[in-house]
């Protein structure tokens, strides 16, 4: 039932159901009859994983659904007493950007690339408020000032590509609030941004909401982000609402097992269970209380065998500039670290910090510009080509994007058999196929998947295939380059559990690269923090989170979404 009373409601959604046309005969439901209210001067968070229908709901409110989508009859969306679904097109158009406005996920592509920020901002002001062009420009500068863009007088004439990601999103927000809307819809406004920028944008949105006393519908997949700003929360899954209530209710006493699972399966800074809880744990039965779960201790003693060591590793990229000059971009500067056998080295940093480049240097997908990598007492960069194949086999990598890392024209079986054939593993094709099937089962896929193509698997399953591909070669070192970042939290937990089990079983060493501090804390024994190509801090995993020394590490940790902070919530 709706968490707020009927009075003072800005937007009421009743029985909204949206179908997408798949082909001539088939329709697929995206939203299956949801109802919720957005009260005045209030932030409602719509939370769900991918495919839950949360963004479709937002587009339906604004009447911006794509042509192949249709709202089922019987639904109603009332905005201050007027039904948006039956409103004539012109009236709805006049309302968009004035009464209800929206901020999208990707600020770069959501801004028109060939017009200046000022042009796009003034356009709203002249269209809805009828301001003259000079008045609109003055107002636009004020708005840019208000959303915290430095030098608004100069930035107003900048093109979107000349702004940073955070500034682009601020410009989008300026456009959205330009006409003092009653309702601001923010669709994953911080997902594409780095954690430090995310924090700033969240603070900006929360401040604007308070100051202007508007309502906000905040759509996100991340419950932790919501805790700080939402008054009420609606949890969606598969087009249906699983649970809705005040933020306090949802965080402190969730009733729906799915909500409980969402809250529990994300790694927390405070605890490190041997195994992360996953959704099925909650749906089937009541899981063990967090306090009772056995915990894992992390760290290195210092006497472990070092399997991989990087010394003064650096990598520069060159781009042409000026007459005949070159500009050097130092992606990795003088990085040194060592990886003990059977342990996990976490590598955190924001986008552009060089963390992925560092991973690619180790598997020799990029040639380093300087430094050495020692693997079992052998300098990799001085290894002759013919001996390199054997070394290559033993250092493997799992990439970020499960949709791009498998060849779409190979079956899962072909993907697994190929490396075995290259390295002469297994006595013959028969043996290799048997090994491949075993490995598929080991990573939690049916052996029947052998004959299936990647597009028939979900993102999480594809990532399992990618892991199995590495396992065929029995590597000693596995580099996980944001390997779980593209996945929903519930799937993420399953994969983290799998990776941990495999490490325990095969005693592999991991270099775990991620932008997600909580995930790294859960997985890593030691952590490296990277910024602008440099390793700024290296320490044991527990140490670095309890007592960070470098200012950048402190800033990173300070920017982490806190989750529910108004009481003794599960996130401390």
């Amino acid at each position, binding site marked *: 039932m709706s968490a707020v009373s009927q009075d003072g409601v800005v937007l009421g959604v009743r029985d909204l159901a949206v179908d997408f046309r798949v082909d001539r005969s088939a329709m697929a439901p995206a939203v299956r009859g949801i109802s919720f209210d957005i009260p005045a001067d209030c932030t409602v968070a719509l939370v769900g994983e991918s495919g839950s229908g949360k963004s479709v709901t937002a587009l339906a409110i604004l009447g911006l659904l794509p042509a192949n989508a249709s709202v089922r009859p019987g639904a109603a969306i009332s905005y201050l007493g007027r039904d948006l679904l039956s409103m004539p097109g012109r009236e709805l158009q006049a309302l*968009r950007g004035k009464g209800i406005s929206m901020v999208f996920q990707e600020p770069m*592509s959501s*801004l028109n*690339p*060939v017009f200046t920020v000022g042009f796009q901002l003034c356009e709203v002001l002249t*269209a809805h408020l009828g301001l003259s062009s000079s008045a609109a420009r003055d107002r636009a500068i004020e708005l840019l000032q208000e959303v915290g863009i430095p030098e608004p007088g100069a930035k107003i004439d900048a093109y979107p590509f000349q702004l940073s990601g955070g500034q682009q999103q601020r410009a989008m927000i300026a*456009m959205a609030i330009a006409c003092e809307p009653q309702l601001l819809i923010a669709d994953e406004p911080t997902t594409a941004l780095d954690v430090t920028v995310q924090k700033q944008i969240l603070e900006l949105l929360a401040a604007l909401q308070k100051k202007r006393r508007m309502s906000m519908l905040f759509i996100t997949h991340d419950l932790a982000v919501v805790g700080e700003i939402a008054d009420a929360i609606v949890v969606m899954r598969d087009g249906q609402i699983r649970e809705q209530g005040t933020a306090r209710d949802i965080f402190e006493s969730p009733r729906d097992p799915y909500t409980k699972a969402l809250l529990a399966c994300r790694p927390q800074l405070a605890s490190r269970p041997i195994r992360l809880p996953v959704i099925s744990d909650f749906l089937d039965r009541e899981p063990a209380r967090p306090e009772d779960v056995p915990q894992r201790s992390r760290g290195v003693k210092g006497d472990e065998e070092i399997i991989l060591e990087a010394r003064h590793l650096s990598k520069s990229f060159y781009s042409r500039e000026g007459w005949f000059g070159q500009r050097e971009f130092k992606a990795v500067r003088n990085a040194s670290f060592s990886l003990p056998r059977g342990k996990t080295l976490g590598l955190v940093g924001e986008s552009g910090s060089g963390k992925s480049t560092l991973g690619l240097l180790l598997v020799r997908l990029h040639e380093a510009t300087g430094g050495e990598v020692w693997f079992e007492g052998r300098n990799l960069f001085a290894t002759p080509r013919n001996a390199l194949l054997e070394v290559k086999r033993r250092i493997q990598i799992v990439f970020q994007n499960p949709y791009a890392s498998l060849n779409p024209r190979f079956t899962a079986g072909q993907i697994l058999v190929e490396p075995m054939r290259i390295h002469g593993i297994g006595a013959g094709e028969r043996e290799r196929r048997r090994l491949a099937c075993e490995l598929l089962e080991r990573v939690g896929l049916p052996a029947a998947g052998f004959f299936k193509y990647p597009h028939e698997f979900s993102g999480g399953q594809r990532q399992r295939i990618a892991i199995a591909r590495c396992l065929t070669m029995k590597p000693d070192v596995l580099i996980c380059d944001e390997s779980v970042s593209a996945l929903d939290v519930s799937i993420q937990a399953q994969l983290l559990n799998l990776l941990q089990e495999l490490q325990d079983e095969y005693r592999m060493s991991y270099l775990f690269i991620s932008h997600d501090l909580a995930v790294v804390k859960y997985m890593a024994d030691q952590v490296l923090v990277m910024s602008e190509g440099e390793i700024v801090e290296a320490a044991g995993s527990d140490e670095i989170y309890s007592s960070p020394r470098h200012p950048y590490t402190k800033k990173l940790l300070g920017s982490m979404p806190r989750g529910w902070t108004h009481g003794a919530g599960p996130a401390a």
Partner: protein
Amino acid sequence: MTAYVLRRVLQFVPTLLGVVLLVFFLFNLVGGDPAYLLAGKISNPEQIENIRRQLGTDQPYHVQFWIFLKQIATCDFGVSWATNEKVSAIFATRLGPSLTLLVPMLLISTVLSMAAAMLVAYLRGSLTDRAIMIACTVGQSISILAYIIVFQYVLAYQLGWFPVQGWGHGFTENLLRYSALPVLVGVVVTLAPDIRLYRSFFLEEIGQDYVRTARAKGMGEARTMGVHVLRNAAIPILTNVMIQLPGLLAGAFLVERFFSIPGIGREVILAVERSDFPLIKAVTVYVAIATMVVNLATDLLYKALDPRVQLK
């Protein structure tokens, strides 16, 4: 910017050298001895030797190549083998008619096809869109020869609306009287493929996120299409028009030939028919240079149209 242009101009040199090598290879090595072609069927060895000496083809290849390079450097390709007219003079007199024909044709067809493409892209999926698309597909499948022959026969010969062919002396007369039908044919022929291509450019832009943003801001369809989408789609369209330019100059030969317009295209056909090598060589090299200059101009235009582009 200056550095960029200068570097690009320097890059002309290897490309031009390649073109020169290709042309030299074709005409001096593959093409066989032009003396036989010139002397005709009935000739004696003495005459052939004479012609060879005049043409310089009795020289070793490196000397011939040197002569060719000198011709390019001085823009002096000698005289036409067929008419003994100076090659440079031929070009100077043929450029005017070609441009009189091509400029109006290009302008009209670009404006028309852009407007039509925007309309069908906006109506994508509708009956109108499908009807126009099918009409375009059929339209571009009919040979250009059929268009010319039928238009000339029906509109000029039978109905007498236009002169059947010919070229006058005054610019206005040429533009309004003699160019009218050739321009019409040119526009009709280019319209169908251009609409199809530009429609795909528009569709590409309509699918972008910023279009959704414009709608979410409350912009009307006219403004969304006419300002936001058009400004972005204009970038590939105008570059496409620019890139076509040098090809058109020589490519309009069919129209020029049918309507007896003394342009460069017709001159090329005549030269090919008469194996008039100096003329073909010259036109190939000239057009290659024009192409490179136009390509550079296209990139500069691109930079002007798209603020994201940085010239490096």
